[in-house]
């Protein structure tokens, strides 16, 4: 048995259904005070795939020392995580209605008090090192956990990502799996126009990692990639998932100004209709880059 194999067989319809519902939650959170909607929508399919299929995890296993870990290093994409956690029963859907209410902990970055959230990310460039620490500890315990860390592509500007990547390769931490949400846009502009990242795959490969590149919106492709791990035996792996910012809402896709997005309540019906296949909505409310 390959220790990195997916926990379950792929149920394509389910992955898609969970993603669709999670997207709806994201859009609703954007209508409750705004959120980093564009950044969230680009990784919904990845998170839906991981939670439905790859991870050895369930709402009943959150304290299980042998559970798999998902760490959202691009913490601002938390609506996607909360959306998926709500759909799968980790947290009640009603809790998302308390977005930005000071009595609760549902805000623009993940809070560890929310069931299913392993760590409070938000400051970019931390996830790789923390994930490595968890993975090293699991290895120390001879425990089978896999540790998946989801990074933004803009986040790869942070030197601490590469520092930890070097150490992970040095220690040959096979159970560490990074996923790069490669939507090609960072806060204010295309990644390649600011600090070019390509060739990303070669960079990770040169750092001693196994590398796979897939369409991050295609569950079948994601499943094939995760099923092919480890790409290099006894090495950490990275899956570069090509994605689209704002995926699922054609009116928002690939737009620099739809990173953070506050939607007026009256605009919500048109956006939800668009999500479910209707015509593209026209928004009067402005989104923003940084």
């Amino acid at each position, binding site marked *: 048995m390959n220790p990195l194999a997916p926990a379950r067989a792929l149920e394509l319809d389910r992955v898609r259904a969970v993603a669709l519902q999670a997207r709806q939650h994201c859009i609703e959170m954007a209508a409750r005070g705004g959120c980093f909607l564009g950044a969230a929508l680009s990784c919904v399919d990845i998170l839906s795939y991981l939670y439905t299929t790859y991870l050895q995890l369930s709402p009943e296993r959150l304290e299980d020392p042998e559970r798999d870990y998902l760490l959202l290093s691009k913490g601002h994409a938390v609506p996607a995580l909360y959306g998926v956690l709500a759909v799968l029963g980790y947290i009640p859907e009603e809790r998302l209605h308390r977005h930005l209410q000071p009595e609760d902990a549902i805000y623009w970055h993940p809070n560890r008090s929310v069931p299913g959230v392993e*760590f409070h990310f938000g400051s970019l460039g*931390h996830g790789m090192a923390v994930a490595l620490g968890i993975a090293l500890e699991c290895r120390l315990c001879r425990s089978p956990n896999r540790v998946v860390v989801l990074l933004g592509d803009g986040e790869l500007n942070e030197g601490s990502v590469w520092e930890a990547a070097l150490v992970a390769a040095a220690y040959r931490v096979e159970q560490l799996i990074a996923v790069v949400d490669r939507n090609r846009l960072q806060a204010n502009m295309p990644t390649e126009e600011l600090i070019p990242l390509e060739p990303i795959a070669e960079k990770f490969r040169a750092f001693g990692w196994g590398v796979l590149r897939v369409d991050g919106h295609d569950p079948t492709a994601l499943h094939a990639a995760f099923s092919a791990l480890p790409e290099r035996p006894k090495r950490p792996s990275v899956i570069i998932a090509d994605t689209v910012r704002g995926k699922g809402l054609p009116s928002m896709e690939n737009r620099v100004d739809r990173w953070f997005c506050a939607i007026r309540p009256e605009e919500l019906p048109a956006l939800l209709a668009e999500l479910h296949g209707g015509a593209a909505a026209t928004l009067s409310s402005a989104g923003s880059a940084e």
Partner: protein
Amino acid sequence: MTPYESALLELLQRDERIVILTAENRAALRNLPPLAGERFLDVGIAEQTLIGVAAGIALRGRIPIAHALAAFLTMRAFEFIRTDVGIARLPVKLVGGFPGFLSEGNGPTHQSLEDIALMRSIPGMGIFCPADEAELVLGLPSVVMAPQPFYIRYPNVPAAVKHTQEFALGKAERFGDPESPIAIFVYGLLLREVLEAQEILASHGIGACVYNLRTVVPLDEEALLNATLHARLLVTVEDHFRHGGIATMVAEFLTERRLALPVLPIAVPSRWVAAAPLAELLRHEGFTGEQIAERILAALPALGV
């Protein structure tokens, strides 16, 4: 084996949760790697990764003891300490090597004269500043087993004094009569100089009570409050900037309680100190026992002590 290595080894043997980490700062751990086995991890010259990894290990229920040079540990990795360790209040223990004046010949790049200020700004972070290796070993078990994160200034200096008083978090080690007209608060390697200053003051017929703070956080507020009842002058002595260390802490303490008492802060003004072997550095910066006594004596006439 040094006393510190032996103390770590004992902790490793006693408690499975303890893991030793270093960012290739092995000076204090030379003999430990083969003995600690898998529970020793060296991440290389990578302080941010050191802290992120320590946080991850602590999330799994272990107690990491992470080593790096004090200046780089507390400053290069500050935001990792504050964010990964501080926000989650993980029981990560941070050991800073060559702190304060112990940077000796390294110069300003390696001088951690603001580490206390920085670590103190993190809610829940304890700070342990032993005067010497013997006191480090004495306090280590309590600090390591405490549920909160701790920053430890590692003192590779010979014993300042024989430490006979029991160690407790937030409890200073007292030398002298608590009802003396002068109370001196000190931490770390300067205890030795302050005890010498205490003798010089005594030879002038002036009684001074010395409080070796041991843990700067939690501060021994009981000792401080008691000193305010008897002393006419409070003196703070530290190899740290005057802002943010115990000079500031004592001032905050007095202000919060509306106590008016003169304070003589003997600390580093806002500049870097000379780069030299410790003895020369102390003399050049005015921190030998003799110089500390002179500075206190000079302050007395104005106070009518």
